[in-house]
Each structure stands twice: as C-alpha cells, then as structure tokens.
C-alpha cells in the first residue's frame, strides 16, 4: 500500500460516485416529470370527456333543421359554460357542420376532437323525432 495507490483508488471512487450521483438525480427528476405528465394527461382526459359530455348532453334534442346552424349554436353553448380549471378550451364551429373541441394544458399537452351534432340526432330533417335517453355521453 503506497501513496500512489491510495490516490488513484480515491480519485476513481470520487469520480464514479459523483458521476453516479448525477445520473441518479437526473433519473429521479425524469421519473418525477413523467409522473407529473401522466397525471396531467389523465386530468386532460377527464376534462375532455367532461366537455364532450356537455356537448352530447343534448343528444336527441332537435336544435335546428340545418346542421351548420346547429353546430354554431352548439359551439356557442359549450363556450358559454365554464371551462375546466387549469386548461384552456377552444370550441369552434367548423365547415361540414362539425364542432371542434380543443383542450390544452399548460405543459403543452393537448387533445382535440371534432364532434357532429348530426351524429347525436340534434339536427336534420328527421330531428323532430322523440328525444333519446342519454347513453351517448361517450
């Protein structure tokens, strides 16, 4: 056992442990980030489904004979409802009698769906039929 050996061994150990500490901390922060993201994604999903449920709660209720008018009415109707907290919501009437529903979180995650009032029996010539019970929330 001489001084050189002690020096080399301790230098090796110190380097390895600092390296490992760095790797360990970055791994831990990645795990934390992934967890936070997962939670945010789950909240976003819940918010999206809630917004969609607001839209489809009127399933079977005739709104207008013209589907384009129905979609713009529906977009305005959902826009008037309070937005889910923590997310920004964009509802717009799109060409083709569709309603575009977009939710984005602060972290950059976003979900968007195009919904059609015609698919829920809210418009069209035969929209005067009797209302459907709401098993169409999905």
């Amino acid at each position, binding site marked *: *056992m*001489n001084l050189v*050996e*002690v020096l*080399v*061994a*301790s230098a*090796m*150990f110190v*380097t*390895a*442990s600092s*390296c*490992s*500490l760095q*790797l*360990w901390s*970055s*791994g*831990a922060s*990645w*795990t934390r*980030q*992934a*967890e936070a*993201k*997962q939670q945010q*994604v789950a909240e976003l*999903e819940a918010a*999206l489904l809630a917004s969609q449920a607001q839209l489809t709660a009127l*399933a*079977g209720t005739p709104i207008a004979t013209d*589907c384009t008018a129905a979609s713009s009415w529906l977009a305005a109707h959902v826009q008037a409802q309070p937005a889910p907290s923590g997310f920004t919501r964009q509802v717009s009437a*799109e060409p*083709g*009698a*569709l309603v*575009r529903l977009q939710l984005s979180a602060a972290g950059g*995650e976003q*979900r*968007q*769906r*195009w*919904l*059609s*009032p*015609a*698919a*829920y*029996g809210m418009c*069209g*010539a*035969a929209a005067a*039929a*009797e209302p*459907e019970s709401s*098993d*169409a929330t*999905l």
Partner: protein
Amino acid sequence: MARFPRPKASPPPEAAGFLLPLSATASLLLLLSSVSLQAAALQARSKVQAGQRLRQAEDQLMSAAQHLLAGTATPAVGQTGLVGPVAYRLVAFDGPHWNGAPAGGLQRGQAVAILELQPSAEQPRAPRAAFGLELARAVTPSGFGAQQLLAFRELGLRGRASQGVAP
C-alpha cells in the same frame, strides 16, 4: 501464506493491491445502479408517450366517426374521408339490425362500424376502432320511413387481427 512465511515487519505484497480493486468494484456498483435507475426513468417516459399517442389515435378515430356519421347514417364500406388532419376509411359496417316490435310507430335498430386511420409516419400501424350506432326509423302502414341516427358510442380500439365486427 503458510508455505511462504514472511517477516511481520513489512506488509505482505498481496495486501498491497487491495485498495484499487475495492475502489473499482465499488465504483462499478455505483455506476451500474444509477444507470439502471436511468433506464427505468427512460422507460417510464416512453410509456407516457406511447399512452399519449394511443389517446391521440382515439381522438382521431372519434372525430372520424363523427365526420362520417354527420354525412349519412348508413355509410358505404370503403368510404374515405378527411377531417382536419385525419384521413380515415370505413373498414366494415354491420347492420342495421332492426328490433322486432315497433313501439309507437318507431322501430329501433343497431349497427356497428369499424373505422381505420390512414397510416402516417407517426403511426405506421393504422389504428382502428369500432363504434356502435343506435338507429331508428318510422313505421307507417305504407312501409318504412328514412332511418335516422339517434346516438352512437365508442366500442374501443380494435386489433389488426379482429376482422369481425361483433362488439
């Protein structure tokens, strides 16, 4: 040691090199443990991303179904469409199966549609999903009226192998 006895005054030559291997082993262990932790973190991250892609596919399929059914309640198999950035194709359409007894001049029926997204660079394996449709048509003495879509719901993503349309 017993065979080659040495004087007690100087340390044995074998003992001289124990510090270096010890430190090397300890360093290796430390590095290995942290690298495995890192790998686990990476895996968690890619899992989150995969889940996000799957949700996006679900959104796109839902949008596609809405777009398809906005046009007509009985689409033709093979029909394609484009909604936003989403290109889709109707793979199968089963139904409508009408229920026997018309109630109040209205007959109810069900149908199942399977939609497939066009494969993209992001998703080379095109996801497909099934949707259940609730239909109704007026029953008059002269015959049946035009059928109308009452509601529809998602039946979930489908695998490539499942060619059948049963929910």
